[in-house]
């Protein structure tokens, strides 16, 4: 006994199923999976009167003969799970085509309600229906609805309840168990309304009768009522039903029946049967529907005349694609900044629970591991949602089907057809929903090829890698072309690999391309948002689950095991370098006119070092921070009041002025991203030089001493300090698990010009491409790094050549798709074989290609 009655919403794609589903269930819905095949299954609940209903939104299907995975899911649900009522959502403005499924549902014998949706459009186009008559032809109540306005929902629910009671009373008569909710009402309900039976004509009816009598002995239970339907399906050569009656005797009879029908009608049985069904529909519509049909498509056709035109079709398409990407990136930028700042704030908030400079494992896990990792992914949500929004608009308006038409000729050349283009387009957002979108492809080989090459469409997650590297190595004018080049390489490789796959392991006749072209329709905001969200959610789920786990794992791999005894005594090195610094400072005395060996300057600068070390332990708002400053100020004040102290304060003041002038220049350069060699740059440097010159003129001696100090004494000291810190961190990193993996991989990476540090980051990138940048930040210990980190760019520039940089981008573009992609490929292809093939194939391709590019570049001396 089922606890509730189950209602299935079936219907052609785009007839408004999801819209009506949302209207009926409101917020009471959830998304699950169909067992076996993973197609998101949406179910929700709805109460009407005292009836609790579970409503299932099925994928769109044109007929009960399933051609694509999506259609198969809908069919299996209807046949195997036997919902209490099936509601066929019909686009009433395109009645004949939509009624084809209704005829089949009628034959299936399920309690049926027909919703004539889009009745607003039907009316506007001049269609009129005799609902009474149509209802008697199909043996089902018909309700006229307008999905997005919610018109007719109450009537629809009434009809559903009535149909459920009908169904239950019939089941009761047959000694079966209807749903509990229906039991009490069913017994007092009037006898079941007899369903009309389609007449297929003498030749076919005879064969149906033959098969019926043959299978009668083999069926049990509920199937007994379905004898006619089963016989019909056998005659139609339906794979699933034939498998249920796979005996030599029955197979033999089916062959004979088919041969007889072919001989008499000159058609295969399934063709003849479809013909009769369409004949029945035509007849019904002639009797009960009036329309000025020719008017229907004129606007649509007029748009199509332009959009699918041989000459302007492709330019329009290209223009739209350009617009989509342009909008995605420009509109996505501000919210990306907000999210970035949000996570930055969250990280610093959490970090402040611990004293500054603390190296606690938990703090590091939370801040560097989790917030850094997951934040890095969520940042791309605006971009991805915008792309999916644009795609949803294109789909809902009907343009996407035209794009598939336009692309068909191109796709045909690589052995695929137009429909494969849509998943590839989604692939620019995220491969996971893209691979799921291949479900609309009917042919398994087409579907596999599309799935396998989709990761070559450079997804949103790979963008930060390019965004980090391109500005670090290439001049401004090259930025856009470089990015474009990377995308084009991806597309070209996808095309080539598709062609290769199609002519080797996935060879086979190219499947016929047939596709409905829905009329253009103004997309409604709500449905566009729902469709955007359905795909965006898949991306978010990836961030929430896989990437969270991976972030933790990677964090652990880069943090452990901890090195406690170092190969080099870094503290001694640091002390030595400080000693050298201070002794050089002593030699400045001469330049400043101080007596040789005078301790003033050394003492003042040492006080500064002491303060810096002390301040490292505190946050700026803490007392310790300002205490340290005060202590230093007191000390220096004391020193300046000593004899010759004036010279010291002159020196310090001049130093601060020079530093300020230089810093102001650097800041305006980086703030406005001023290019070297530009006129703005020479302007700014002119201003700086003039300011410095006036400082020099005021006190030439002090000025020269300060410049000597800053450039020849302090700068090398600071460099040395960073070098020591980095050497220490590199040693720690090399000791960690990730470092060891990177080191172990180094011999294989060398031919591509990569070192072990890139190797460690690539390990992270396998988990999720987004992680690469953060991981580079960790190996170069520039702290929390994102794709805008100048410090990290500086490090990269000093370690790698532009050629290597290009190779990194190339490798990341092509190599192993992220784990989420592999796992979705596994689910969708239903085998590990193809998932591993994708992983291995793409990695091998990336390797070979990158080695070739690096070696050739090296030989020719390009970018080395």
């Amino acid at each position, binding site marked *: 006994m089922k606890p509730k009655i189950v209602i299935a919403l079936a219907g052609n794609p785009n007839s408004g199923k999801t819209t009506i589903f949302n209207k009926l269930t409101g917020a009471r819905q959830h998304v699950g999976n169909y067992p076996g095949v993973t197609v998101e299954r949406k179910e929700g609940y709805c109460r009407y009167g005292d009836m609790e209903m579970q409503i299932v939104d099925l994928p769109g299907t044109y007929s009960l003969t399933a051609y694509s995975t999506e259609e198969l899911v809908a069919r299996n649900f209807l046949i195997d799970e036997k919902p209490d009522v099936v509601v066929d959502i019909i686009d009433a403005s395109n009645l*004949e085509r939509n009624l084809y499924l209704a005829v089949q549902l009628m034959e299936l014998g399920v309690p049926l309600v027909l919703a004539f949706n889009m009745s607003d459009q039907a009316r506007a186009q001049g269609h009129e229906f005799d609902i009474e008559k149509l209802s008697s032809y199909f043996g089902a109540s018909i309700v006229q609805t307008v999905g997005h306005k919610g018109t007719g929902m109450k009537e629809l629910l009434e009809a559903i309840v009535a149909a459920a009671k009908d169904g239950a009373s019939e089941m009761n008569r047959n000694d079966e168990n209807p749903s509990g909710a229906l039991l009490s009402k069913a017994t007092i309900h009037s006898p079941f309304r007899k369903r009309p039976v389609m007449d297929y004509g003498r030749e076919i009816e005879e064969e149906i009768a033959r098969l019926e009598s043959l299978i009668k002995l083999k069926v049990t239970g509920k199937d007994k009522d379905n004898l006619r339907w089963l016989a019909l399906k056998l005659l139609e050569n339906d794979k699933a039903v034939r498998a249920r009656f796979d005996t030599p005797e029955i197979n033999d009879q089916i062959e004979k029946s088919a041969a007889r029908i072919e001989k008499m009608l000159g058609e295969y049985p399934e*063709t003849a049967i479809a013909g009769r069904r369409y004949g029945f529909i035509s007849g019904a519509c002639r009797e009960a529907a009036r329309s000025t*049909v020719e008017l229907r498509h004129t606007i649509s*056709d007029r748009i199509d005349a332009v959009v699918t035109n041989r000459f302007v079709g492709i330019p329009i398409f290209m223009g739209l694609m350009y617009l989509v990407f342009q909008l995605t990136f420009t509109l996505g930028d501000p919210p990306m900044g907000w999210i970035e700042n949000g996570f930055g704030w969250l990280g610093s908030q959490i970090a402040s629970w611990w004293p500054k400079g603390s190296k606690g494992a938990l703090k590091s896990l939370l801040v560097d591991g989790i917030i850094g990792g997951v934040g890095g992914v969520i940042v791309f949500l605006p971009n991805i949602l915008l792309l999916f929004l644009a795609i949803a608009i294109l789909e809902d308006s009907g343009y996407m089907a035209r794009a598939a*038409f336009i692309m068909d000729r191109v796709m045909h050349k690589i052995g695929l057809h137009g429909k494969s283009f849509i998943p590839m387009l989604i692939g620019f957002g995220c491969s996971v929903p893209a691979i799921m979108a291949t479900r609309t492809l009917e042919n398994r080989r087409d579907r596999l090829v599309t799935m396998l090459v989709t990761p070559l469409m450079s997804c949103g997650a790979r963008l930060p890698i390019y965004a980090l590297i391109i500005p670090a190595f290439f001049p401004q004018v090259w930025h856009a072309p470089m990015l474009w080049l990377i995308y084009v390489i991806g597309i070209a490789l996808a095309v080539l690999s598709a062609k290769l796959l199609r002519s080797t392991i996935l060879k086979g006749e190219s499947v016929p391309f047939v596709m409905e072209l829905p009329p253009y329709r103004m997309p409604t905001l709500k449905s566009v948002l729902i469709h955007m969200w359905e795909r965006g959610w898949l991306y978010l789920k990836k961030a929430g689950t896989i990437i969270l786990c991976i972030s933790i794992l990677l964090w652990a791999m880069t943090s452990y095991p901890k090195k406690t005894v170092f190969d080099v005594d870094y503290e001694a090195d640091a002390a030595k370098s400080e000693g050298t610094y201070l002794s050089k400072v002593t030699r400045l005395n001469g330049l400043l006119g101080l007596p040789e060996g005078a301790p003033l300057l050394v003492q003042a600068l040492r006080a500064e070092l002491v303060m810096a070390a002390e301040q490292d332990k505190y946050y700026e708002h803490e007392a310790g921070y300002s205490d340290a400053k005060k202590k230093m100020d007191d000390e220096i004040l004391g020193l300046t009041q000593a004899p010759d102290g004036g010279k010291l304060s002159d020196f310090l003041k001049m130093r601060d002025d020079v530093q300020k002038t230089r810093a102001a220049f650097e800041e305006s350069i980086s703030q406005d991203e001023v290019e070297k060699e530009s006129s703005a740059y020479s302007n700014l440097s002119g201003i700086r030089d003039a300011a410095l010159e006036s400082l020099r003129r005021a006190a030439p001696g002090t000025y020269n001493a300060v410049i000597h100090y800053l450039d020849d004494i302090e700068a090398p000291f600071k460099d040395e300090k960073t070098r020591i810190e980095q050497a220490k961190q590199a040693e720690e990193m090399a000791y960690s698990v990730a470092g060891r993996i990177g080191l172990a991989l180094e011999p294989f990476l060398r031919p591509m010009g990569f070192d072990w540090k890139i190797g460690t980051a690539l390990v992270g990138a396998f988990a999720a491409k987004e992680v690469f940048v953060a991981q580079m930040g960790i190996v170069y210990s520039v702290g929390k790094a994102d794709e805008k980190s100048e410090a990290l760019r500086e490090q990269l520039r000093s370690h790698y050549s532009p050629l290597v940089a290009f190779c990194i981008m190339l490798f990341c573009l092509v190599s192993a798709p992220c784990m989420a992609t592999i796992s979705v490929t596994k689910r969708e292809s239903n085998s590990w074989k193809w998932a591993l093939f994708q992983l291995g194939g793409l990695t091998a391709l990336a390797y070979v290609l990158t080695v070739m590019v690096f070696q050739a570049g090296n030989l020719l001396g390009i970018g080395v």
Partner: protein
Amino acid sequence: MPLAMVKAGQRVHLVAVDAGRGLQARLADMGLVPGVEIEVVSNALHGPFIVAVKGCRMVLGHGITQKIMVA
């Protein structure tokens, strides 16, 4: 004559589909059954066609248009 030869704007009737059983059934499911009226909305040499069948627009790949016999 094959549908591939029909000019845009012309209306013809389907006579037979000269293809394997699977494709025949597939097309019949979409309403391309013998006797049905087909209007060619747009045609491209060696490219896909757009046709109107029972007031519904559909795309037929180049290969298919050669297999559909019309009069």
